[in-house]
Structure formats: C-alpha cells, structure tokens
C-alpha cells in the first residue's frame, strides 16, 4: 500500500515544482474511436482459407475465439449471414448495433465520468472519520450516512468489473470486447495502487478501447500519456537527475530519475525482454520521459508535461540519437522508435497469435502477422485479419486447443445458458448486480479483474489456469450458476431445454449438449453423462414421481466438463 502521508508530501512537492515552471496540459481525452472513423466496406473483405473443419466447427471456433462463446441460436445466425460476413462485422465494431448493452451500461454511471469528476464525486473518506469507526466512537451505520459506500472510490472499480462482465456476456461487438481485454492486460494497471483507482475506468475507456483495433502507435501513446499508467509505473514522479526543488514547502528537496516505466515499456509493451535493449537504453528512455507527469493525482488527476522536470540533454536510444532540447517530444519520439522496431512487430504478433490460435503459436503464422504489422505501420485490424484468415487459425490443431481463462469460462457459461444480468440496486448498499457477482467468481477462479499487481498482466497459457483448486472452483461455479445462486444472475433452464420431456432424461441431455457444446461433445463425455442418467440424484426418482430430470445438475456437469473448459 502506498503510504498516504508519503504520497501527499511528494504531491505537494510536485505542485510546488509546477508552480515555478511552464506546464502545458497534455490532452487526456482521446478523439473519437478509430473504429467509427474507419471506412466500412460494402462486402466481406476477409477471405477464409480452406480448412479440414466442418462449416459448423469453423463457426463455433470463430465464436469461441473472437468472442466469449456462442449463445443459443448464435450458430444458426452466423450460418445465415455467412462466417466471412460475421467476422467482417466484428472487425468493424462501430457498424454493429449494440443497444441492449448500451442500455445495461447506464446502470454504471462512473464509467463515463472524467478523472477530475471521479475525484470530486468519490473522495476517500476522511481518515478521522474512519478512526472514529475503529475506536467505536461512531457506528458503521453513522459512518455510512456521512460517507455512503456508493460514493467511495472503491465503487469505481466495482462498476468497472461489473461492466466488463456485462459487456462480455451481452455485447454484440464480441471481438471488440476480447481485444479490449487483451490490450488492457498487455498494458496492465492495478486499481489497488494509490490514485489509479480514480483513473482506471477512464484509462480503459479513453486509452485502450478506442485503439483496440486501431494503430499500435496510437494505443502506445495513449497509454503512455494516461495518468493511470503514469501513476502505476511511477513515471509521474521521475525527474531529471538531482533536480532540487526551489520553491514551496519542499524547498531543497532532491528529486531524480525513476526507471520503472522505461523498463516496462520496452520489456512488456513493445520490444519484449529479448528485444535487444540494454540498461543504457533503459536510463535514456527514462530520461526522455522525464516531465510526463500528473497534475495533483489525488485532486485533479490529469496528465501534464513539466518542462522544469525534463532532462533536456541528448539521449541515445536503440541506435537513435535524440538531440538536446527535445522537451515533451522526446517521449513521443521514443514511442515512434519503439512502435517501429522489428522486435515490437514480433512480440505483438506472438502475443496475439498465442491469444487467438494456440499456447505455442506456429512460428510461420507469427512471422506473417509480424510482417503485416511492419507493412501497415502497426495496423492492428490488419494484423488480426492476417491471423484470422490463416490456415493455422482454422486448423484442426487449433480447434478447442485453448483452455478458457477464468473470465472466458464465466462469460461463456452465462452465454451458453442465455443468462440475464440484473442491474445493481440504485443506492443504499443493496444487491450489487449480476455483473459484479460474476466478476467475483472470475476473481475466485484466479483472475481478479483490474487487480493484477505485476505489470506483466495475466498469463495466456493453459498451465496458468489448470490446477486442482481452480478446477474445483470451476465445478462449483457451474453448480452455483445452474442453481441460480449467483445474486443478480438469472438462468432459465426451462427455456434452455425447451420442450424436452423431463421424464426422459436422455432427451434433456441431448438438448443440453446441443445448446452448451453445440453437439460437439466427445464420445467419452457423452457416455459418462448418459451413465449419470441412471443416477437417482439426476433422475430424482421417487415413489410418486418416477423420473423428473435434475436439469440444474445435469447442466452443471456439462458446463464443468473437460470440453467446455476449452475454446
């Protein structure tokens, strides 16, 4: 935990520092999403390769990889418009109407507020007040009347988590949501670090989302300038070496360089750890970014450039020379150098291919995707087209080869059963809504959202998610979901199994296998589940009621089956 006292002193110091220097605000709100600016093609632009998979398997594969899994009826809908046309629309999300989601998101007012608005509207409760609660001088009830839970900063991350699940489950722009998740994880920040909690929603909304299928350079620059990243990786406090504060209460205090962001932008955001940089590059990149800071993180929280903190000397970075006096442009120059470095194209192509194709992505595909990245100056939509239209993407080896992450298993389960999410109760600390209940489950399965402490983000390989404890939690989630025990999450199994006769369990099972696994269960799973139908707990045989299939438990078994853990 950041020490409050310590941060405040540095903050006051930076305020003082700023008072004595020319500071220009850095634009924090990003212009209109590039998705809507992109020209919409009249007809499918993507050409799908030949594949040994059946047409239905290809559709299922696309729904599992480019989204959070099929809902009942999705297979038929894509069959109707054609897979290429479906993928095309997903690549241009602004063309896909998403009214139902937009309506649902209105339940989360913090999503669209600016950082200064959030700082004003959701202040940290007075520490003296909390001390009174601890000493028993005031009751929790009284404290909540003065500082209600729904006006505290934690509310922001709660709404963001709930919105993420709501989007994953409901959005028609499935690929966009997958890309936002991918890039947020790539440019990870942690809501629990200091002032990031007021900045994180705006970070996803303005730095990540507009560029998720845009240009990599724009994405990198937007994250570099955003206060959430500046705070999370400490760049806001990094100044030229031995800077001595001249005025204000912190007069005489010495500041200096902080290498944290400089190292991570190369290791994790662009070149990769073997991308060919040295400790000297780290230091000069850190010097280039000195002055990229935040105006009073706990009061205004907007980006600023502080000329007085900037190191105006010459820098040598990866074979490029930045002449002295570059000012704020030094950082922009670094972004350009890193975006165009060949290591970046390979690093990004590898990570995308790992996410969309397989844990060990085929090197030939990675090389083609990297080449597209280089040829198009980092056009992420075009890189995705290279990956999706590759024979490797639609290969038998890739089909159901990825183990679902916790987010993916939770979202795809709810989608498979066509679950409904209730909005949060408006005020008074009532029921926090279905999206939040699901987000808590994702956390329990090992992926607490917006709370990954290391800047690496979450791993994207099976070994990270498959272990005994996690498997048990997945089974328990399936049982809880089908029994309607997730607050605010409604599953109507009657609707899922429809007219299937509950007195004939094998019919119920067939319907479930079609709606949850699109009829793609292995022979083993089908026979194991069929054997379960003799289990009196499934058939619920009683003297009066010979068979009345326990659909809840049967559905949980299907959701907890090995096949459904894969996408």
């Amino acid at each position, binding site marked *: *935990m*950041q*020490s409050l006292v*310590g*941060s405040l002193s*540095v903050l006051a110091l930076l305020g003082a520092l700023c008072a004595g220097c020319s500071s220009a605000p850095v634009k924090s709100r990003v212009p209109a999403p590039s998705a809507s600016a992109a020209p919409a093609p009249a007809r499918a632009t993507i050409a799908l390769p030949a594949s040994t998979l059946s047409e239905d398997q290809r559709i299922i594969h696309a729904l599992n990889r480019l989204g959070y899994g099929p809902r009942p009826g999705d297979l038929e809908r894509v069959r109707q418009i054609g897979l290429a046309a479906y993928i095309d629309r997903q690549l241009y999300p602004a063309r896909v109407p998403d009214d139902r989601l937009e309506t649902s998101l209105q339940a989360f007012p913090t999503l669209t507020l600016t950082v200064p608005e959030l700082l004003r509207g959701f202040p940290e409760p007075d520490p003296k007040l909390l001390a009174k609660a601890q000493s028993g001088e005031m009751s929790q009830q009284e404290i909540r009347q003065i500082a209600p839970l729904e006006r505290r900063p934690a509310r922001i991350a709660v709404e963001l988590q709930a919105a993420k699940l709501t989007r994953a489950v409901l959005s028609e722009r499935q690929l966009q949501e997958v890309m936002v998740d991918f890039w947020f994880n790539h440019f990870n920040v942690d809501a629990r670090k200091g002032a990031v909690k007021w900045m994180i929603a705006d970070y996803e909304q303005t730095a990540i989302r507009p560029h998720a299928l845009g240009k990599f350079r724009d994405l990198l620059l937007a994250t570099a300038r955003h206060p959430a990243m500046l705070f999370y990786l*400490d760049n806001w*406090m*990094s*100044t030229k*070496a031995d800077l001595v504060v001249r005025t204000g209460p912190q007069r005489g205090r*010495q*500041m*200096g*360089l*902080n*290498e*944290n962001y400089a*190292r991570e932008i190369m*290791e994790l955001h662009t070149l990769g*750890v073997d991308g060919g940089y040295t*400790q000297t590059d*780290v230091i000069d990149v850190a010097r280039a970014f000195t002055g990229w800071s935040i105006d009073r993180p706990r009061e205004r929280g907007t980006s600023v450039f502080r000329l007085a903190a900037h190191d105006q000397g010459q820098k040598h970075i990866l074979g490029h020379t930045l002449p002295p006096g570059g000012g704020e442009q030094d950082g922009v120059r670094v972004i350009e150098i890193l975006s165009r470095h060949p290591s970046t194209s390979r690093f990004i192509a590898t990570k995308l291919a790992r996410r969309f194709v397989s844990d060990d992505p085929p090197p030939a595909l990675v090389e083609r995707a990297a080449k597209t990245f280089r040829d198009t100056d980092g056009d992420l939509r075009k890189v995705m087209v290279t990956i999706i239209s590759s024979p490797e993407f639609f290969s038998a080896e890739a089909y159901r*080869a990825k*183990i679902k992450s916790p987010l993916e298993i939770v979202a795809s389960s709810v989608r498979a059963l066509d679950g409904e999410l209730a909005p949060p109760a408006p005020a008074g600390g009532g029921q926090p809504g279905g999206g939040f209940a699901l987000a808590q489950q994702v956390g*329990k399965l090992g992926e607490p959202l917006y709370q990954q*402490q*290391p*800047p*690496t983000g979450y791993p994207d390989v*099976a*070994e990270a998610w*498959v*272990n*005994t*404890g*996690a*498997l*048990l*939690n997945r*089974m*328990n989630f399936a*049982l809880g979901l089908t*029994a309607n*025990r997730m607050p605010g999450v409604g599953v109507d199994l009657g609707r899922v199994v429809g007219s299937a006769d509950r007195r004939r369990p094998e019919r119920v099972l067939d319907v479930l296998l079609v709606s949850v696994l699109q009829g793609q269960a292995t022979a*083993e*799973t089908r026979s*194991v*589940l069929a054997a379960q139908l003799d*289990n009196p707990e*499934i058939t619920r045989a009683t003297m009066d009621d010979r068979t009345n299939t*326990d659909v*809840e*438990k049967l559905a*949980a*078994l299907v959701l*907890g089956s*090995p096949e459904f*853990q*894969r996408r």
Partner: protein
Amino acid sequence: MMSCTRRSFMKSGALAMLGLGSVPRFLVRTAYAQGTAARPKILIAVFQRGAVDGLSMAVPHGDPSYYTSRGSIAVARPVAGNAEATVDLDGFFGLHPAMAPLKPLWDDQRLAIVHACGSPDTTRSHFDAQDYMESGTPGVKSTQDGWLARGLSATPSPGVSPFRAVAMGTQLPRCLRGDVGAVAMGAVADFDVKQDMGRKGGGVNARSGFESLYEQGVRDILHGTGRETFDAVKMLKAANPQRFPPANGAQYPRGRLGDSLKQIAQLIKADVGLEVAFADGGGWDTHANQGNERGQLAQRLSEFSQSLAALYRDLGDRMNDVVVLTMSEFGRTVRENGNRGTDHGHATAMLVLGGPVKGGRMVGPWPGLAREQFYEGRDLAVTTDFRHLFAEVAGRHLSVPASAPLFPGFSTNPARYPGVLL
C-alpha cells in the same frame, strides 16, 4: 498440449491399490502418524514478489556507506532501548525494527540470514528474475518445470499423498509446475465440490458426476489434473485440517501471508503428507516512498515477520521437521532514487528458519557498499548464488538425492553450500 504425466498415473494406481477412495483415514493414520520418525521433513518456501530491499531487512548499520548512500530511507542505527531503531544482531547487521518479532528466533539460533544472496543473471526484470528463480535456470527461458517440482519428483516419498506439494493461492507457482502433481488451493475450506450448492436443501452429490467426467478420455492436462483433484478432495476430507486452530497462543496477522501460513500449519498438523508448501505475497516493489523505520516497507515487513513468528509459535515441536526459506527475485539499488524509493537492484537477503537451522548467524561473505564493490557500478553484489542455498536446503533437509536435476547445467557442490543447516 501437455500430455498427462507418467507420475499422475502411477500415483492414481498406488492410491487405488491402497483403497484411498474408500478408507482414506486408514492411509492417513498409518502412513504419516506413526510418530515423528515417519513424518516427512517439510520445507515452506515464501516468495516475496516484487524484489524486497534486503538492505532494509538486514540493515548493515556497521557499513558507513549505508548511511551515505541513503538519505530519507535509511533505517536508524541501533540505540539500546529504542524499539524504533535497527535491532542489532551482531554489531554490524541488524533487523529492521518491524522485524523485531523474529529476534527471539535469532536468539534461539533458529534463524539464519543469508545476505548478498541472489542470481548470477543480470536481468532487472521482475518477471524474468522470478521465473529464473522458480525454474532454477537463470538465463534459460525454455525450462518447463520448477526446481521444487524436479527435486521432489526425484525424491522417494515416505508415503503416497496428493498433498506432497501445496501452494496457497489460486494459481500454481512456477517452482511447483512439473511432474509432482502439486496442489494449488485458495483456502483449505474451499477445497471440495460444494455439495450444498446444487440445490436448496443440500445433499446433492455432484462430485461423483464430475469425477467420472475427468476419469475417462484423453490424456491431457485437464484430465490429469481432474483425476488428481478428486484424489486430493477425498483425502483432505478425511484428514480434516480445519480441526486444528492456531496453538500456543499464536496470532497470525490479517493478510494473505498470515492466512497462508496458518493453513499450511493446519495441513502439517493434520498429517496429510505435506513435504513442500509454498506461499507468496507482493508489495515489495518500493520505487517510491519506501519509508524508513516506519512507512510502506515497514508495514509489509511487519506483516511478514509477524506471520513467520506466528507459524513458529503455532507449530511448536513440529518446527523440528520444518525449514522456512524466504526468497525474492532480486534486491534493490543501494542508492535512494529520486522518489524516496529504490529501483531494481541485484543481491538481496534471504531468511532460513526452523528447527534444523544453524541459526543466530549471518551467512555468506559481505561484499561491501563502497562504490568499487558494487555490481555494475550501482548494486549490492551477489556473493551467494541462490542455487547453492536452495540446493543445501533441498539436499540436506528434504533429502533430494545429489543425482536429481535440481538446477540443470549447474553443479551444486556441497562444499559451496552456505551452511545454514545443522
């Protein structure tokens, strides 16, 4: 795709032969509870993720360069009777005052501190350095498994237990990945198919359904893990570790590490056949506002030390079989940075505590804090390769055979062991 391992089949077979599924209590009692002689030696590995500042844990207050290199974050020299200053250990080193709960262990000679310990690799990346320390192969990224998993799978076990290796947490750490079937659990209480979640009123047994789903079919990571899961669930249910509350007045602090160690102690007392336990926690990456006797790092060190001290007290005599080894991927810069913090450095300090420890000593040569003694002109140099320390604990405490591929490509010569064990 990872194929199911040879080991998990062998283990499943052995469990089936012993009839674990039907009479686990029999196995638990006979294999592990015949008195201390039959009890396994236990290693508890604690990973301080984020690179802990070793110079604040074991303060070199006798090295004058320490106070010239650090301004606001130096921990004050020991002053007799002042609990806010460094707690002197040997006239040259002292514990951070927040680590005072560990001083009695030092006085009992049950705590040794290996200073200037770390990796020969030059990386200052958290991710790479943690990976190297857990895989046990600094500089080699292609290693698939972890050093603890390799060590255990090469070591004959006194019993057959799915709980030989347990990591507290929802993800299995890198050091326990491999051919040993390590278990990851967020909490002991959650480790079962929740019987009452299926339907209101409870009593619905879904476990057997899931179990049969994972019993058959292809040999892949999911099915292999599934089979291990159900073996483990049955055994844990029989052993019932939750019947052991903290003993001897031990009080674990609130927080992840305290919770983890409390439950590890329960598993030890329940005799589930635990040989290696793993716990970790973050918050050590103190780039800004690190603090000195008080502050951010002091708070983390306080929780850390109270947790370890509580474990020591809680386990009582059982500590005779237990060694706790703390580790962190690297240390931090000797010089304070521009934000009253420290950046990524090189060597750090590691703690070894428990009954078998030759304690009350600082272990390993001190490289010094003068500029010419620095690694790469800025950091504390490594004088003890972490692999020698880990190899001593694995070989001498867990009886991992010398032939085991503990650290591939590195010869672990016992003559170079730091000598932390009796």
